[in-house]
């Protein structure tokens, strides 16, 4: 029964997508309702699974046939919880998307791939081995790619490129890691890996495998430094897709990070510290970017990036603390859940803003929320929750993470180990929490306090509503969950308990009193830091007062600090191609010379043969009017006709006059000619080699200097004649048609003679071999 429900959840969306495509041909309304129905059905099945969890006798379910290796699924608390959340997210986004996409093109395509993404995502969450994870992971990547580029504008295409590039590299590196892991340990099933991993943890290859797998997942989650695509892609996608990307798809990356950290490297301090450092950087960098961002969706995207950092920090702590990780595990799980819900609300609100105003720039959306109490309330719920204010759900998870950090410090102190660095991390944690509060305050002020009263009214739609009822329901229900969970913390505790098996969490020694003064004080400190950051930093430094007393939000983030444009693009598009060209030209040069030297012999041999024949002919009759054998040879072996004609002229009287000696001379001359030609050619090639290398480095420096705000260098224009060799040899600077023709003919002769020489080569070898045979 449970297996049936799970299979339904995973595979039904794939089928439903095709049905929705068929319906789409008839009626768009029907399709929208169908998609909603599918979401509801999946949601109901997920609720059923979640309610039943723990009752399954055999937790594994294997479909052996698919793709050779077979898919393995497992049903447990955490997995069904995330299935529930995913189905919920899809349901809510589909409620809003009807309104959001009104009049847009490509809706049928969007919904088709939307449902596929749902199925694939659920497949990932239920997977019990890396093969299954990878299987659905790749499907999800490509279906979500179509959702990302849905708008088809410049931003979307740029985003699509980044997303796809990152995903393909990440996916393949992961696949290599998986295979290496399979080779080392003999299994890729998660639960078996836990038991066998300790035997292999001393092997470097095991670490390579784990690192490679982690890399693939980190790209999807957006963990520093693989986050480069995230702040570009989230804003470029349509709002419902952003909500899905940020709320659920990033969690698939976290899912993998959890597997690697808690199943492959449990209690490996080196691994834990690595993840911890990455988490801290992600957390802080994201918040910093969000403080600076001036686009509503970009703020939210950077906020996601930062919250992922919090979660990764939790993952690292769960790993480091070993048996004492009860709090860290609960904090991580709850923060994942919270983040999924909060980002759902916030991105849907961004969608509402966009569909009314058509813009997301903070300067354009000022005062949109005035006179809209519903919007104000839901925004406040979400914003305060993500900032970790008491009575909202975010507070609970952040408190748990903070508590576990303190507990770890306490343990380290007890064991007499160095703990200073963790004190700093704890301070960073608080600071980042404060920054979260600050950038959320910024958004709140922009939307609800600045601007004029008219701004709030002017943005209303034609029927005086800025949102339809369905969208209101979607946002409202999700937003209500946040205070609900925050007040009834027992609910959250119980939710956390469901994930313990998956996380291998330790038993809870003492319950946390969330509303104890110590914890409330933490919340207040966060608020204080947040207010300080907002008023002293954002208000003072990042805004400008305009003439009419309004504030404007200029983009203050120095563009050269953009990791993408500052490092990855110059590296990938400038430096690597330069080096690559250099190396390739080196190879080309060597290969060219080595490859062609044998073929020089062919024209020589042909001429020699021709000469010998004619010698005989002259001797016999002194007349060579009929076709010389050389022409026949060349005809057979496809030497160019034009070349042959050209050659016969001078050679004819030459043979008549000089006979045998001339032919020897001709033979040598050809050799010398070729030798000279090749020396010249090699020299030119070598010159280009140096030039290319120099050019590459000059370009690199130019890019770097430009990025650093220097004077900027004029890129040297390349003036390379397309066919230089012959022009130079003929002493001309310009390339004439004659040169081109000469070059083409020569190359044709050379390339045609390749086949001839192959034949000769083969015959020669055959003779040698036979000789060897009989010699023996």
């Amino acid at each position, binding site marked *: 029964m449970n297996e049936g429900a799970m299979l339904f959840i995973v595979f039904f969306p794939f089928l439903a997508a095709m049905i929705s495509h068929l319906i789409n041909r008839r009626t768009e309304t029907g399709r929208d309702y169908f998609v909603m129905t599918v979401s509801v059905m999946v949601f109901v099945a997920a609720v059923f699974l979640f309610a039943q969890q723990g009752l399954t006798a055999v937790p594994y379910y294997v479909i*052996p*046939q*698919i*793709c*050779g*290796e*077979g898919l393995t699924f497992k049903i447990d608390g955490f997995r069904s919880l995330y299935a529930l959340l995913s189905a919920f997210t899809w349901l809510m986004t589909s409620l809003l998307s009807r309104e959001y996409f009104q009049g847009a093109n490509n809706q049928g395509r969007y919904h088709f791939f939307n449902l596929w993404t749902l199925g694939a995502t659920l497949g990932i969450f239920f997977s019990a081995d890396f*093969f299954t994870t*990878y*299987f*659905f992971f*790749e*499907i999800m990547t*490509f279906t979500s790619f179509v959702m990302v*580029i849905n708008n*088809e504008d410049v931003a979307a*295409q740029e985003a699509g490129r980044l997303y*796809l590039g990152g995903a*393909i*590299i990440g996916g*393949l*590196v992961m*696949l*290599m890691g998986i*295979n*290496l892991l*399979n*080779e080392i340990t003999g299994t890729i099933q998660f639960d078996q890996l836990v038991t066998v991993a300790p035997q292999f943890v001393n092997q470097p290859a095991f670490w390579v495998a784990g690192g490679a797998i982690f890399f693939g997942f980190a790209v999807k989650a957006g963990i520093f430094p693989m986050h480069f695509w995230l702040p570009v892609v989230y804003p470029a996608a349509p709002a419902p897709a952003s909500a899905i990307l940020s709320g659920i798809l990033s969690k698939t990356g976290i899912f993998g990070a959890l597997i690697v950290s808690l199943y492959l490297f449990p209690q490996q301090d080196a691994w834990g510290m690595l993840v911890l450092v990455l988490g801290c950087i992600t957390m802080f960098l994201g918040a910093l970017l969000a403080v600076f961002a001036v686009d509503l969706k970009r703020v939210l995207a950077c906020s996601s990036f930062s919250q992922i950092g919090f979660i990764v920090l939790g993952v690292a702590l769960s790993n480091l603390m070993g048996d004492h990780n009860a709090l860290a595990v609960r904090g991580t799980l709850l923060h994942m859940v919270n983040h999924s819900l909060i980002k759902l609300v916030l991105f849907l609100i961004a969608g509402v803003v966009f569909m009314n105003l058509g813009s997301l720039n903070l300067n354009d959306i000022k005062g949109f929320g005035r006179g809209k109490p519903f919007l104000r309330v839901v925004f406040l719920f979400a914003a305060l929750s993500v900032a970790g204010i008491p009575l909202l759900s975010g507070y609970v998870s952040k408190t748990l993470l903070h508590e576990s950090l303190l507990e770890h410090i306490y343990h380290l102190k007890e064991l007499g180990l160095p703990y200073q660095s963790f004190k700093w991390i704890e301070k960073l944690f608080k600071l980042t929490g404060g920054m979260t509060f600050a950038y959320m305050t910024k958004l709140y002020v922009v939307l609800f306090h600045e601007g004029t009263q008219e701004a709030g009214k002017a943005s209303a739609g034609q029927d005086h509503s800025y949102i339809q009822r369905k969208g209101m329901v979607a946002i409202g229900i999700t937003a209500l969950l946040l205070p609900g969970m925050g007040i009834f913390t027992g609910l959250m505790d119980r939710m956390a308990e469901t994930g313990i098996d998956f996380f291998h969490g330790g038993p809870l020694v003492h319950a946390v009193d969330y509303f104890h003064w110590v914890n409330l004080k933490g919340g207040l400190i966060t608020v204080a830091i947040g207010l300080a950051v907002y008023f002293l930093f954002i208000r003072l430094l990042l805004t400008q007062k305009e003439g009419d007393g309004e504030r404007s939000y200029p983009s203050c983030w120095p563009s050269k600090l953009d990791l993408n444009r500052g490092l990855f693009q110059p590296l990938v598009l400038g430096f690597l191609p330069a080096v690559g060209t250099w190396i390739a030209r080196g190879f080309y040069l060597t290969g060219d010379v080595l*490859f062609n030297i044998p073929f020089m012999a062919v024209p020589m041999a042909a001429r020699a043969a021709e000469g010998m024949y004619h010698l005989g002919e002259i001797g016999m009759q002194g007349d060579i009017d009929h076709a010389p054998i050389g022409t026949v040879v060349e005809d057979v*072996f*496809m030497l160019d006709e034009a070349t042959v004609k050209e050659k016969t002229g001078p050679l004819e009287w030459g043979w008549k006059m000089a006979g045998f000696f001339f032919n020897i001379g001709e033979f040598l001359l050809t050799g010398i000619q070729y030798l000279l030609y090749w020396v010249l050619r090699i020299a030119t090639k070598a010159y280009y080699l140096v030039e290319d290398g120099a050019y590459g480095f000059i370009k690199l420096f130019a890019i770097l200097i430009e990025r650093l705000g220097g004077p900027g260098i004029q890129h040297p224009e390349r003036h390379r004649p397309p066919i230089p060799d012959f022009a130079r040899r003929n002493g001309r600077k310009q390339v004439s048609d004659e040169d081109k023709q000469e070059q083409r003919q020569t190359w044709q002769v050379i*390339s045609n003679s*390749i*086949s*001839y020489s*192959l*034949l000769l080569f*083969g*015959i020669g*070898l*055959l003779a040698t*071999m*036979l000789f*060897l*045979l009989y010699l023996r």
Partner: protein
Amino acid sequence: MTSFPMMILPIIIPVIGGALIPFVRFQTRRNRQIYVLAVVVINALITFFAIRTVPDQAYTLVRFSQRLSLGFRIDGLGMVFGGLVALLWPLATIYAFEYMKHEGRETKFFSFYTITFGITLGIAFSANFLTLYLFYELLTLITLPLVIHAMDEKAFYAGKRYLTYMIAGATLIFIGFIFVLNYGETLDFVMGGVFSPETIAEHTEVLRNVFLLTFVGFGVKAALFPFHGWLPIASVAPTTVTALLHAVAVVKAGVFAIMRVTYYSFGATFLQGTWQQKVLMALVLITILYGSGKAYTISHFKRRLAYSTVSQLSYILFGVVLMTPLGFKAALMYLVAHAFMKIVLFYCAGCVIHTTGRSQIELLGGLGPKMPLTFGCFTVAALALMGIPPTSGFTGKYQLFVAVADSGSILAWFGLMIIVLSVLLTAGYIFSIIKIAFLDPYVECGEGICVEPEDPKKMMIVPVLILTAAVLFIGIGARPLLLFLNQVVGLGV
């Protein structure tokens, strides 16, 4: 020997049936089509029947001397290749009926096209080196008229190149043939090699060198760098020829022959870890990178696919040169997978050329929504080419990864990285086509291509749809095939 040799029939029927076509005066085009289809379908059915029923033992047709004979046998490897060919040929024939209408010279075309079917099966079912060599040469000669089908300057040039490359390759193969004849216990194909330990001990180095030559000789058909030159040039032939022959039958015959000599004549264990293996692996890896890199730069639709074939074939050869049973299995899996996905890609290109006359990739802009079935199939096959689950390409690549992990040699891991790089390039060159077709604006027609694009007629699109379904099916339902391949390569069930 006792019963009638079933496996001879599928070789003879198309040869006779095809040779008769020019002599029979068909009243209408339809009659000829029915005749061709009947021959091909009946032959395919007989092939399947033979594969199912004929026991795995050699049948000698003609015996020239003690060691030289013409013999046939259906073993596991032959079953895979023969089955593949028999599966694809009827569908390809149906596609060709519609496609060849605008190419002309249909009588000549279908005559040779049908004969080729028999010759290819002859390669699949040959029991010894001599028979293989014979049919291998015959395949070259019989496909030549198909390559020069257009009968213009370009086609003749392509034909010359094709012939010269093939003959040059055959000389190298002949060396291998002589050595196997002289040193081997038998000319028959025996899993694990035909050289006795004493022979190997005595002539280790020379035999390995000869293997190198033989591999390269067969590699000419398998488009191994630097002997790949004929393949992209031969894409001047009609799309049906390019697709079936140059993506499936001819090149796969090269790969198949390489598998035969590597695992059944010379023996893989004897070649493991030698410098010859490393040289071959290096060649294969160069081909992989070179092919996909070259495909990236080419804007002619079919030629880009041809270079893609060059690169993809070496994925198969990479599995072969791992010289392990798992490598062999991966190679076979990829052989089957690649046959289907490449034929779909070529046929989609053919559909575009047939209905719109556009052969440059820049001109494909906006065709996707206008030809949804064609480009839908193309997308599925493209995803398979990139190795995205659950397509057949993924299954093949996964087996390859498993084989590499199993072989554990450093060079193999290095090769895997090159494959990763190549997949990235593959994504670049194949995804850009999809992107142009679906996202770019429609390109208004220039001179001579003023046709409103739409999906081609049923006769053309239905085979493509079936093949696309097969691409997915082979990926998802690969289990029985993989189990069968386990038996073929001797891994047990």
